[in-house]
């Protein structure tokens, strides 16, 4: 075996990271998609032929973590038929991709006739065809509406461009010149990587370089294994939802996680998660797994090099053809929303093991807003994407950051500056501000979301949005901690505010001159009990208008004197009052299936009429329960005339989420949902008729 001294190991592994850095600089400066050059929505990486990630730099986790699957699919499909000068392209969500807009270019690098490494550029193309500008949208029902699917293909063969493939691809996208620019930019970056890799091989020799890679990956693996080994063995469970509308009816879909700690390994099993649905809330196991990976890495093992060694102690499972293992022909545009929900369930499960290291729920959605059309002023068609960042969850030691991309989204800049935007596309930014009161209240406050209003200044444009957490808010962590404000996308039409039909989801809304889009990103969940927050911190929040004086009183229990100082006595009294008003109910074990829904599945809690009246809740109201574990359990109310008493029935899974046994009490809290125009599955007229017939 080749032996490598520790210094050479450092020089070579740093050298690979430097190569990725150089690739990134090239892509940023030369790409044509604004999502790439302004938002940094792209990744580079170096991969071993077995698919393992050798090196990355500041590359966005959402791209680079699922990427090994893309490399493996390509290697499986082409086997020995890979030659110097071949360049692969892929975006297929069913075969190595994320969502269709993320197009991956793989560039095999050979050394002495042998495939040695694959540099990769994965970038978000502004448009990949499909039914609306920007391609992905909230009301898609199948993948063909989301753009052109490219399974792993050779775009170049032995150095020659496959003109048929190139022409076919460019003919099916709205801005072919821009797409070609993106391809050239990615190839340029990979060429640079190739020359650097070859130089390194020349200097140190392949045996030494390969040994360095092995050692570098091994030590990352070892580090994570050591962290996992310190956790108590066991199964930790959590559940959460994605927002699906079935013909306008809200029909939430369930994501479930069973996280098993076994020695120095973690098994993330999505068993029990919803079957896939004909709406954009599905993705691949590689993408869903990336959410779990980020949740684990960012809490348990923050910092440290990220490479393929870290994947080895983690195992992912999920039911076939489910929201975490999408198959034909379900749409897959919402890879980010599903991944973010995987981060949420990871935080929920991890909070039961390492409560001090997690945060309140993150804003929980990437909130992609696509706009497009033909600009008369600039004589070209345009497509524009922005993903206004929301808040981050409160942490044990500090408040969550506001309007700051979540940890799974990396170094993405989520919005354009006003001055670039107004020059590039026919919109005027009317305002861009933080949303007061959008952060979840807690001992540590969740970060705030932002509100942006964009007004159309040309004749026509199309608007699509594909968001989640528009109905079900990000959750708080710890007893008493509050959820944050949901995402809200709305319109101003003819000067009048107008809600959109399905919260968070629109495909191709036709805007006219003077109409505006109002985008409000979600806040982050609170951490710990807001009644324990230092009143001085609340005062500073009120001074800065992060928190309104009313919220300070109602949720933090902090009251002020006329001069703005904290009124200590009134605060004490108000806090006592809020604490006394909290409702706790006893749990009774009941293993009957609590789930309802059409294509989705949502948990229902049955309450007697008297109890519902006392709690001021009605059918289809969203509630949350908080037990001994930090993260809450969400459910919808069904008032049951046959039911008596004040207890809440809960199955084993639900009790494990809350960490409570039969007879123990949990905090009951109603959550506000935005109006649902066509109602919710299980509570519509159709359901009533079906129930009557049964």
């Amino acid at each position, binding site marked *: 075996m080749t032996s490598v001294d520790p210094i050479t190991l450092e020089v070579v592994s740093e*050298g690979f990271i430097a190569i990725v*850095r150089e690739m990134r600089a090239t892509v940023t400066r*030369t790409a044509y998609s604004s999502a790439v050059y302004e938002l940094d929505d792209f990744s580079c990486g170096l991969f071993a032929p077995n698919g393992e990630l050798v090196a990355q730099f500041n590359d966005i986790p959402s791209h680079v973590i699922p990427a090994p699957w893309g490399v493996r699919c390509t290697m499986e499909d082409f086997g020995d038929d890979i030659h110097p000068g071949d360049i692969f392209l892929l975006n297929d969500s069913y075969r190595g991709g994320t969502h269709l807009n993320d197009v991956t270019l793989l560039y095999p690098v050979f050394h002495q006739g042998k495939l040695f490494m694959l540099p990769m550029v994965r970038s978000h193309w502004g448009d990949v065809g499909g039914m609306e500008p920007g391609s992905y949208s909230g009301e898609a029902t199948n993948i063909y509406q989301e753009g052109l699917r490219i399974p792993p293909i050779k775009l170049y063969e032995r150095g020659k461009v496959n003109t048929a493939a190139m022409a076919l691809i460019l003919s099916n996208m709205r801005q072919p010149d821009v797409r070609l*620019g993106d391809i050239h930019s990615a190839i340029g970056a990979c060429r640079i990587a190739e020359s*650097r890799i070859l130089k390194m091989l020349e200097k140190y020799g392949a045996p030494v370089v390969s040994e360095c890679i092995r050692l570098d990956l091994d030590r990352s693996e070892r580090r994570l294994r050591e962290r996992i080994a310190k956790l108590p063995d066991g199964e930790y469970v959590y559940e959460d939802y994605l927002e699906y509308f079935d013909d306008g009816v809200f029909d939430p879909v369930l994501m479930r996680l069973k996280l098993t700690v076994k020695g120095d390994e973690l098994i993330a099993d999505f068993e029990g998660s919803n079957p896939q649905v004909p709406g954009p809330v599905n993705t691949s196991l590689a993408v869903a797994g990336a959410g779990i990976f980020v949740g684990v890495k960012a809490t348990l093992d*923050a910092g440290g090099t990220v490479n393929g060694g870290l994947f080895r102690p983690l195992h992912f499972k999920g039911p076939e053809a489910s929201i975490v293992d999408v198959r034909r022909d379900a749409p897959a545009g919402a890879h980010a929303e599903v991944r973010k929900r995987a981060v949420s369930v990871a935080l929920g499960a991890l909070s039961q093991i390492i409560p001090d290291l997690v945060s309140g729920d993150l804003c929980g959605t990437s909130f992609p807003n696509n706009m497009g059309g033909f600009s008369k002023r600039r004589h070209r068609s345009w497509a524009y994407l922005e993903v206004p960042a929301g808040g*981050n969850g409160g942490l044990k030691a500090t408040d969550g950051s506001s309007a*700051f991309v979540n940890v799974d989204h990396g170094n993405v800049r989520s919005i354009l500056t006003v001055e670039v935007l107004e020059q590039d596309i026919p919109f005027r*930014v009317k305002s861009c501000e933080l949303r007061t009161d959008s952060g979840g209240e807690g001992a540590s406050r969740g970060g705030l979301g932002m509100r942006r209003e964009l007004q159309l200044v040309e004749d026509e444009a199309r608007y699509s949005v594909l968001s989640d957490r528009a109905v079900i808010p990000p959750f708080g962590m710890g007893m008493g901690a509050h959820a944050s404000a949901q995402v809200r996308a709305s319109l101003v039409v003819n000067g009048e505010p107008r809600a959109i039909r399905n919260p968070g989801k629109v495909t191709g809304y036709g805007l006219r001159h003077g109409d505006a889009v109002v985008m409000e990103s979600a806040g982050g969940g609170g951490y710990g009990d807001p009644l324990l927050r230092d009143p001085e911190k609340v005062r500073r929040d009120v001074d800065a208008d992060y928190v309104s004086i009313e919220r300070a009183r109602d949720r933090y229990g902090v009251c002020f004197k006329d001069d703005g100082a904290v009124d200590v006595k009134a605060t004490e009294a108000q806090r006592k009052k809020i604490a006394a008003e909290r409702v706790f109910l006893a749990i009774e074990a009941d293993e009957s299936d609590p789930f309802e829904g059409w294509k989705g599945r949502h948990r229902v809690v049955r309450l007697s009429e008297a109890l519902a009246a006392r709690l001021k809740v009605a059918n289809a109201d969203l509630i949350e329960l908080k037990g001994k574990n930090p993260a809450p359990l969400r459910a919808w109310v069904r008032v049951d005339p046959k039911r008596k008493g004040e207890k809440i029935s809960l199955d084993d899974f639900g009790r494990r989420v809350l960490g409570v046994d039969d007879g123990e009490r949990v905090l009951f809290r109603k959550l506000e949902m935005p109006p649902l125009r066509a109602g919710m599955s299980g509570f519509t007229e159709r359901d009533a008729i079906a129930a009557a017939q049964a």
Partner: protein
Amino acid sequence: MAWIGIDVGGTFTDAVASDPHSGQLIWAKSATTPDHPQQGVLNAIAKLEVELSAVNRLVHGLTLGTNAILERKGADVWVVTTKGFRDTLEIARTNRTILYDINTLKPPSLVPRQHILEVSERLAYDGSVLSPLDEAELDSVADKLIAAKARTVAVCFLHSYVNSAHETQAAAYLRQRLPGSYVCTSSEVLPEYREYERFSTTVLNAYIGPKVSSYLAELKGDLGKSGYAHEVLITTSSGGVATAERAARFPISTVLSGPAGGVAAAVHLGRQIGIPNLITYDMGGTSTDVCLVENLEVPLTSEQFISELPNRTSQIEINTVGAGGGSIAWIDDGPILRVGPQSASSQPGPACYGRGGVEPTVTDANLMLGRLDAEGRLAGEVSLDRSASERALKKLQPALGDIELIRLADGVIKIAVARMVSAIKEISIGRGYDPRDFALLAYGGAGPLHAAFIAEELDMHTVLVPPGPGNFSALGAILSDIRYDYVRTQLLDTRKTSVEEIDRLFEPLEGQGKDELLRDGVPGKDIVLQRSLGMRYIGQSWELDVAIPADVKSVEEMEALFYRLHEIRYGHATKDPTEIVSLRVAAIGRVNKPELPELAANSTSKPKSVRKAFFDGEVHDVDVYEREHLPLTKPLSGPLIIEEGGSVTIVPPGWSCRVGKVGTLVLKKESA
């Protein structure tokens, strides 16, 4: 008659005086006096023993503003901005630079939200007025500022880079209502698009404005009292100098004053000794700056951050690494040996300083290896304690399988060197340059100690060590031209515009530059105006700054210059259409510069001692020379150690050293 250059560093204030006729240089150092820095400056000048009334040019490198930002000790800034956009600075670009860590927080804004006041006004992207500045609202903003006793105000409106009228009007009104306060506008500080970056730069300017302007006023007064009768000049971040009056208005343009001075000196030295392509390597106690100089041109950029906040003023393109002589070696939980970015700085300093430092540093490793003199004193000031270094380094041994101590010390140096190498690769290979086409110019106290090892890794065959490497930045101060930069953001389709139109847009910028230099007393014949265009392919967003020589007479030629630069920078270029997004003018007032003097012959030419030092895995007996006693005629073969006041040069085995023009040490790789 004399010229004086000053560089105020963290530990020492360096001064150099030059007689522009004889070229004779005098060096002096005095302790920096942080609370009252002008005292340190006056002390250092006093040590030069030069009559201030006979000095006709005094140039000052400024770190006051830089430190105020790094230590977050600036002014209490208020911002007046366009209605609807009070959160521009806090929202920032929303990106997170540290990944995979849920604890990462957004860098806090310098201005709390309640200090941001809004006024109704709005311009479109082309500068047309959508709604006028609301004077009644401005009036109530002024009332609020007065009530809050605000003394520092940044006026930041959207699209002011193309039409500054509203900002100018608001600033004039606020100056009138708040007499004596520091008011600046985003259009005067940085008339460029992307409001977050412009506002950030403007707020940084305001943040350090009061401190820098009052310091400069006091310094001018003190120097005047001591007999100095001319303008005080300040080194700017772009390697030129500006009058103290201008530096007080735009202090943000001086934050890289120190490193810029070093690069300016490097260019001057390169010109004098006939080596036009240099990579400068300035290694001090806590950090290292590297910069690539091609053809004696100082490379400039405007895309930098200070303390995580964007500063988009024109500045030399340096790459800074958080590793210097005081950087601490440590073991992460890999366990991997790391060096920096934590530094023992000057207090307590490396373990061997014996001032209470217990962590092993790069300097300790050098001492262990025999490359520094355990008997001697560093910079003539600090005596070194080898046993303290040994104790500190020993702490790292267990985690690394009880590696031999000397090899551990060697490893610390190698890792520090690897970081420098990576930084140099980024600015050379990373931008399409081959480092083998450049000489490595090493200065700063710790630069010459490591330069040959870095050159070795990069296959560079020449290392240069200038005279006075420890004071090189101060020397740069007096070698700099006056330089002012002007920019206009303007979108033009290259193929639809004309040379005439471009000329028309350049002319007011050039006029402004010329007027300002004439006002500073620069004779017209010494004024040079350099044009450049920010260009990109239509569809791209990031522009390249393309220098446009005076003899370019068509837009086709301009486009061709862009293609060539794109090819060099990014490895590919098509002949696709381009657009122009900005026009820049550098107005340069050439000043006479002293020639560096040649060395007189010396008599001794003998090593002062022989010391055991570790190179290439073994201990060698190494000749140690005083720099001033090196033989002038014949090259010497390594290993060699060359000592002088502010630095130590290492010539490893396989390298030779000779004394070149103006006393520069020229280290060459000997062919195998």
